[in-house]
Structures are given as structure tokens and as C-alpha cells.
């Protein structure tokens, strides 16, 4: 069932447009070809309205493409009968932490997806317990969601998806409504899951620093896949990013300004640490 490159998600020449828009400026997505491999961390960036969220919803079968097809572990998302299998393999985390928690307690919420899969109660309790241990949510299990912080709510949402034992987690700006501490916590959690459990991640984000940790960057604009590549290649291409009204990571932007002022910095600085190290080695040379 799993195809040659062990792809989790494959988009083949996918078109999508929102119906009823009349004289639309552009289709939401056109001719998208994208493969997410097992255990890969893909960051999806692009300006507002570029189709990032639409693409995620297509991966999760919340939408089905008008042209082309999407395969999740080799299963087409267009098939009504296999929807649960697709959504189990590809869990989704939404932007607003408040509007994706369903149940009145944390444990019931983590269990929600499992209950929908009609698993036996003992198995549900075991998995909820395991996932809560893994994400450090055990103390919160009996709490109602409205007493949690934004970061905790997002972690509960991640736990709910994780309990379904997915192969891939789709995240639609999961940190946009969080404070810096919550943001860090959520990102650390997801990176850890990606590293240790080999769960693939597709992460839509407006924060270039978050994208910088991905294995691969995919840039969308006006519904088209503009460019994809390693963070070192894509996120350091400031002329491209600025043209799309996007920003590079702080270290990249800063390094560019320093280069303008005549400092000789290596070309592929991405993270703050690398920038600091390069600046320090400059001084030592002088």
C-alpha cells in the first residue's frame, strides 16, 4: 500500500477553487505536485490567501480536489468509505485552540477521535493515558478546557490527534494565537514527536523562525507552488521572500544588513546561533 518513496501524502496535479466566487481572481490551488515522505518535516509558507490552509484541508480530506488527486498512504481522499483511514493517518491541528476542543474535560477530548473510531473503551483509556504521559498532560486530564492556557489547549489538541496514532500531523498556524512561552512549548512538542516517533509534519506558519527548523520549505503564492527546497536555500533567498511580502528569519535579515555594511559573513546563516558564532569568529580574526 505504501508507495516506493514511503510517501505519506502525495498531491498529484491538484486543482481546487472555491465555488460561488464568480469572477475569481485566481483559483485557490492549481497544478500542485507535492510529496511528503515518512518522517519528514515540511514547512508551508506563503502570503495570505496563497492556498496554504486549503492544501492542508485537502490533505485531511476536509476538501476534495476538483482536479488531480490526493493520496494519503496510497489511499485516495476522494473515497467516502476510506475517509476515517485518511483522517486517522493525517491528523489536523487548527489555529484557534478554543474552537477545536470538543469535550468538557481534557481526557474526554483526547478520547474524542478514538471514540469516533469506535475503539474498545479499555483501549481508549490506555491510549489516552499513554499520550497524556508523553506530552506531560497527566495533571490536566480532569480539567475543563476553558481553564487551560492557550499553549496547553494546543497540546491537548495535539494529544487528541496523536492518540489516533497518525503518520502525519497537519498544522495550520498552530502558534498564531499563543504567547511566546506557549509557542515554544508547542513547537518543541511537535519537533520532538517528529524526531523521536518519526511522525511527518506539515506546518503552515507565518513565523520564519519556526519554518527554519523544517527539513523542507514549500512556498505557495496565488495557489501555485513557487519553489521548494531546504531552509538554507529558500529562507536565505531574501529577494524572493520580500517579493512575496514575506520575511526571512531574524538571523538571515540581520546577516544581510551586516553584509551590506561590508562584513564578510558566510552565505547560509539561518539560525541565531549561527549568526552569533560567525560574528564572534569575525572579531577574533581582526
Amino acid at each position, binding site marked *: 500500500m505504501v508507495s516506493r518513496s514511503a510517501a505519506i501524502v502525495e498531491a498529484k496535479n491538484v486543482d481546487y477553487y472555491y465555488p460561488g466566487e464568480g469572477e475569481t481572481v485566481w483559483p485557490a490551488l492549481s497544478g500542485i505536485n507535492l510529496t511528503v515522505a515518512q518522517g519528514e518535516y515540511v514547512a508551508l509558507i506563503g502570503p495570505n490567501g496563497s492556498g496554504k490552509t486549503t492544501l492542508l484541508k485537502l490533505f485531511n480530506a476536509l476538501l476534495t480536489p476538483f482536479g488531480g488527486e490526493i493520496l494519503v498512504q496510497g489511499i485516495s481522499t476522494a473515497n467516502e468509505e476510506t*475517509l476515517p483511514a485518511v*483522517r486517522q493517518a493525517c491528523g*489536523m491541528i487548527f489555529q484557534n485552540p*478554543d474552537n477545536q476542543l470538543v469535550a468538557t474535560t481534557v481526557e474526554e477530548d483526547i478520547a*474524542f477521535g*478514538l*471514540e469516533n*473510531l*469506535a475503539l474498545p473503551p479499555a483501549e481508549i483509556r490506555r491510549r489516552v493515558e499513554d499520550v497524556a504521559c508523553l506530552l506531560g498532560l497527566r495533571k490536566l486530564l480532569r480539567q475543563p478546557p476553558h481553564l487551560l492556557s492557550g499553549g496547553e489547549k494546543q497540546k491537548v489538541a495535539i494529544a*487528541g490527534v496523536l492518540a489516533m496514532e497518525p503518520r502525519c500531523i497537519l498544522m495550520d498556524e498552530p502558534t498564531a494565537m499563543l504567547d511566546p512561552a506557549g509557542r515554544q512549548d508547542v513547537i518543541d512538542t511537535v519537533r520532538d514527536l517528529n524526531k523521536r516517533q518519526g511522525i511527518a509534519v506539515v506546518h503552515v506558519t507565518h513565523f520564519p523562525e519556526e519554518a527554519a527548523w523544517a527539513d523542507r520549505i514549500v512556498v505557495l503564492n496565488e495557489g501555485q507552488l513557487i519553489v521548494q527546497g531546504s531552509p538554507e536555500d529558500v529562507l536565505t533567498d531574501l529577494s524572493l521572500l520580500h517579493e512575496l511580502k514575506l520575511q526571512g528569519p531574524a538571523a538571515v535579515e540581520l546577516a544581510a544588513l551586516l553584509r551590506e555594511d561590508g562584513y564578510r559573513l558566510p552565505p547560509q546563516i539561518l539560525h541565531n546561533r549561527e549568526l552569533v558564532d560567525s560574528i564572534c569568529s569575525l572579531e577574533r580574526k581582526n
Partner: protein
Amino acid sequence: MSRSIILGQYLPGESLIHRLNPRLKILTLVLILILLFTLETYSALAAFLAFALLLFALAKVPFRYLLRGLRPVLFIALFALVIYFFFTSGGIVLVRIGFITVESEGVIEGLFIVTRLAALVLFSLLVTLTTTPLSLTHGMGYFLKPLRYVGLPAEEVAMIMSVSLRFIPTLMEESQRLMRAQLARGADFETGSIFRKARSLVPLIVPLFVSAFRRADELALAMEARCYRIGAKRTRMHEDVILPRDWAVLAFVIMLLFVTYTFGF
């Protein structure tokens, strides 16, 4: 408004009454309520009132919760008393003010009705105080199940109720935030006639509704993304098992009903 929002009237506890199966609690409550309506004598009513108080003690519910629970029916009770005192004739005349008389029959019946009302409220209160809203919802969902055969989507109704419970605190927080935002712009919710006050709530209610619909939309999407499908078979994390002690309690109550009914005091 208080910072922490208490959902329903649930008072956490570990008593036997707290731990009884919610379905059985609802069933028992219904049986007792029906019985209360058939009681005809003061002594029987007094016995049941004492029984209710005993259960409250067993559930370790503080006395003030009892009083607080009875407060909402105070007005109805007074109203009933007035009606019975002045409009029921029979027995000896106790008070005569002009053409209005209060006769003994009216006083006896009025007090009986009010005591019965108090007993009804107390038994219902006991259940809502000792059962979480979620358990109550699931319990009621269970009794709605047979209605599936006449086209009522019982499972979905239970889901709607539990999602509502989940969002009550969220929407209350939001309404407070909106209220503060409007106050900051000079809105006035406090002064003026009732009509004026009601009108001043419009700029509060409209955005609240808009946001509730937006939330509902997003939540539906999130539920769907987690494999929720209307009409599909679901299981529950916490099984609703009926233990021997639950059966024992039900048997006891049925026996009580039987005894009361046959001997009638």
C-alpha cells in the same frame, strides 16, 4: 460576575450518591417525583421530606445549598399559598377581611402543595448537585435512545448537549470581554428603563452571536477532521456500567414506592 464559572450546580464529592450510576439516578428521580404527586397525606409527605434531608446529609451537601436551591421556587410557592388561602373554601373561617375570607381548608391544602413543591425541588436538586452535567447529559441521552426509532437522532442530541456544556464558559468569558470593550467605548448597561437596558444589550448580543456561529463552523470542521461522522457507531471512553449497588438502590426505591403506595400512610 465571578471570575470562575461554575457549570450547572454540580458540587464535587465522593459520597455513595455521587458515585451512583447517572442513568439510575435519573430513573430513580423520575420514580420519586411521580410518587410525590400521588401522595395525599401530610404524614407521607413529611416522611419523604425527611428522606430527602437524610440523602442530603449522606451526600454531605452543606445546608446553604439547600436553601439556595429552594430560593428560585419561593415566588411560585408564595403565589400558590395566596391562591389557596384566599380562593379555597371549606372548613372553619380563620380570618375575615371585608369580603375576603381565609378558611382552614385552604390553609391546609396550600401548605400541602407548597411542601410537595419543596420536596420535588429537593429531590431534583440532590441529583443535579451530585451529578456532573456531562454525566447527566449522557444519562438523558440514554433515555432518549428509544426515540431514535421515531426519527430523533438521540446520539447527536446528546453530542449537541455536551458540546453546549463545553462552550458555555467560553461564551461567557467572551460576553464579559465584549461587555468590557463596549464599556471602554462609553456604553452604559446599568442605567435607564428596562427598555433602555435591553436596547443597550444589542451591541453585545450581535457580536456574540456572530462569534458563536464562527466557532460552531470551526468546531464542526475540527470534529470532522477527527473522524466524527453523523450516524456512525461510536464508543465511550468511560463505560456506563451499572454496579450491584446501583441495582440495590433501585430495588430499595421501588420497594419504598410499593410500600407507600399500598399502605398510603
